[in-house]
């Protein structure tokens, strides 16, 4: 091994940053009780995955992948992951729109946006069946 682990990690800083942001997003989804903050955690996680893919396609010292007829032999970066992430962004927007509509409906039913309070209101009104 020519480089140490630390040097290798710093060399691939986009991937390291992407995984740290993924962890932050995952923690946000699972630990906050406010429904809007959970949705923002999902958005943070998806942004980190976009960063991961776009960093995969990058070549240091390359030019953007638009064919320039004056210079057809330049080093183009890989356009495929960027195209894949367009689909990912569409999915993220759809999920966000759907979840926002659901949050509005839940607010109209329960009067609160906090998951713990919704759980208590539901348990008070429920006296049959067992939840597990």
């Amino acid at each position, binding site marked *: 091994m020519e480089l140490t682990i630390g040097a290798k990690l710093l060399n691939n800083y986009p991937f390291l940053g992407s995984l740290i942001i993924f962890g932050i997003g995952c923690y946000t989804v699972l630990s906050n009780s406010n429904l809007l903050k959970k949705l923002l955690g999902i958005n943070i996680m998806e942004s980190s995955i976009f960063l991961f893919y776009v960093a995969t396609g990058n070549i240091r010292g390359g030019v953007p992948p638009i064919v320039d*007829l004056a210079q057809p032999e330049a080093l183009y970066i890989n356009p495929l992951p960027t195209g894949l992430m367009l689909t990912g962004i569409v999915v993220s927007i759809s999920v966000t729109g759907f979840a926002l*509509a659901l949050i509005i409906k839940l607010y109209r039913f329960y009067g609160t946006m906090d998951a713990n309070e919704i759980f208590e209101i539901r348990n008070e009104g429920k006296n049959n069946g067992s939840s597990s």
Partner: protein
Amino acid sequence: MLDFILKKVVLILLPFIQMFGIYVIFHGHLSPGGSFAGGIIVAVGFICYSLVFGAEKGQEKIPHKITNLIESFGTLWYGLMGLVGVLRGAGFLLNKGAVAVGQPGNLFSGGLIFLITFGVGLKVASTMVTLFFTLTEEE
């Protein structure tokens, strides 16, 4: 006074926003952007109009019946373009044997890609406008 400035500015800016959105849709196979980004820009134009002038005038301009039909039409258009390849005896969504293969830099080459981006761009715009109207209506 503030209302007046906003209304006049939106009325001046709206054609340019739409034109830029249509430019991004049509040049999807030549420059960055494509159907999705262009559709969002066109929808942003409608949403700005609806924000400044109020929801009723916005819904008058783009009624629910038309957005319903445009959304279905967008996906059916995509499928029909794909079936063109099937009907000409080759595979699905075929560009190579059934319709022309493109040359770089030329707007009207590239066969089916141009038509498909147009359909998808229209559908994305109408979906975004429907989402906006659904989320902001107050009961």
